[in-house]
């Protein structure tokens, strides 16, 4: 009897410890975002007061207006959305085409070409950076959205993931289509792509996240304000207005809210995408 009640007590006690630890962890995870939000609503002299105040005396929504006056945020949104959409859509097309061929068509040299694609994943980005920059310069593409976009349209990583996905799909449908005389492209387009939808969505989400947050490449190929993405624009804000923290925090929130929103709407796909995409760290 005693052991049973003991076990029962333990069963009630352990979840409580878990809850406490997870609550502390969750608190640490949200505090910076929450603090940015609270700061963004304060007056400039309010944040340099000691002792610090937690809540804003009166919400200063005008900080958001101020930061939008300082920087062309609408242009940043447009640039970020356009480059992200083009990168993700073309990236998916090129990667899935190649991934299907690598997975299902037995053409000579297939393994070698696939290894070539894989080897690119091993190389740190800095090794590509200078020649990519010089290429953009030679093409006259510096300070254009083309330069920001083009390198993101070809992903070894997405190809690798989608090939894995295609390999896991059943081949019966494909074979009957082939007997009916469908060519490989039509099999890919009409049969395999719809089947690969979950994989495509995961890859699309992870690519969207990387593209939205990408920093070094858009920083390097562009220094004009009207071609900046949110990540780089935000960094430039910091360089110019280091002291006005409420305005800085307002700018930071303007840059991150779309991703946070998409994350809350598509949590499951996000986490699946990240689990797949964890490799890139």
């Amino acid at each position, binding site marked *: 009897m005693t052991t049973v009640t003991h076990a029962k007590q333990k069963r009630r006690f352990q979840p409580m410890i878990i809850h406490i630890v997870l609550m502390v*962890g969750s608190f640490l995870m949200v505090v910076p975002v929450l603090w940015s939000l609270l700061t963004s609503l304060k007056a400039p002299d309010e944040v340099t007061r000691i002792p*610090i105040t937690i809540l804003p005396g009166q919400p200063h929504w005008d900080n958001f207006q101020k930061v939008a006056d300082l920087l062309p945020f609408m242009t940043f949104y447009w640039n970020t959305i356009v480059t992200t959409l083009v990168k993700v859509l073309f990236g998916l097309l090129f990667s899935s085409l190649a991934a299907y061929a690598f997975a299902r068509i037995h053409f000579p040299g297939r393994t070698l070409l696939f290894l070539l694609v894989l080897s690119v994943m091993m190389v740190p*980005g800095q090794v590509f950076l200078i020649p*990519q920059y010089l290429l953009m310069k030679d093409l006259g593409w510096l300070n254009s959205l083309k330069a920001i976009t083009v390198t993101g349209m070809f992903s*070894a990583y997405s190809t690798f993931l989608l090939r894995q996905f295609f390999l896991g799909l059943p081949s019966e449908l494909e074979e009957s289509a082939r007997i009916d005389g469908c060519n490989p492209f039509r099999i890919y387009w009409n049969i395999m792509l719809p089947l690969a939808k979950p994989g495509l969505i995961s890859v699309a989400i992870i690519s969207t996240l990387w593209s939205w947050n990408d920093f070094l490449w858009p920083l390097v190929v562009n220094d004009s304000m009207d071609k900046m993405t949110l990540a780089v624009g935000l960094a430039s804000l910091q360089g110019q207005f280091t002291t006005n923290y409420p305005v800085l925090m307002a700018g930071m929130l303007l840059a991150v809210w779309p991703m946070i929103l998409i994350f809350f709407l598509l949590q499951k796909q996000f986490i699946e995408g990240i689990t797949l995409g964890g490799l890139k760290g």
Partner: protein
Amino acid sequence: MNAKQPSSINAKRSKLKRREYGWGYAMVFPLLFGMSALFIWPVLRTIYLSFTEWSDFGNYHWTGLSNYIRLLRDTAVYHSLLHTLQYVIIYVPAIVILSTLAGVLLSSKVRGISVYRTIFFLPSVLMPAAIAMSWKWILNGDYGLLNAGLKLLSIHGVSWLTDSRTVLIAVVGVAVWGAVGLQAVIIISGIKGISPMLYEAASIEGAGRVSQFFRITLPLITPTLFFVSVTSLIGAMQVFDLIYMMVGTVAIDHVNTVVYLFYQQAFIKNDKGYASSIAVLLFIMILIVTALQFKLQKRWVHYD
């Protein structure tokens, strides 16, 4: 293939096969074309450029090994290597331990666990520029939230990002904060792969949660932990965004890592030849360290 088959069928079949090959090549072509131009050719060109010297107007000429000789003599290189090493040595164990802890807790069956997972994951969707900005404000020496909190415990906090003693650990802390949820998700997927029967058997034998963790969970997720440590190490060796945005001119000398040095040489000082040799150095280092990890994995990773 059947030798008795009429040759016309054979011919037809090989024609079909050749057509299929054609489709295969056509389908991989767009990707391979782009990758060759933007990734494979650049690797070769960086290696070539590392043997060149650049003049002010963007002209360059072959100088043999002189960039590499300069690399060996440059104290800035040794400093950047030291800082990268320090960063990696703190970051990798911290992220592996904390994300394992978070992963184990987040895969327990308590109420509201999916809410916790969502919250832990939140930092992973934020851009490094935003993370840097937010934390810079929290770590501010005079008005920062952290020092205000420490004051309640009667601890006098320093100016974390300008003090040479704390700047590195502060950046590592922020990087860990930003990545722990993401790595935890990967570890959760590793834990999900463990058969529940093992835990049932263990609890019948009276093993507590802690001993279950050390005897079952930990050994069985070593492949996942290996994956997390390899990718975290590669990522940590390339740290740039956070340092570029969080650390000002005051303390940068204490945290300028290899990639920071590379960025400076390539795009601020415009010495693209020397910068290329730094990139090659980084690549070689990553290859060596990763190979080492793969070699050492036999000692602690269990594959069944």
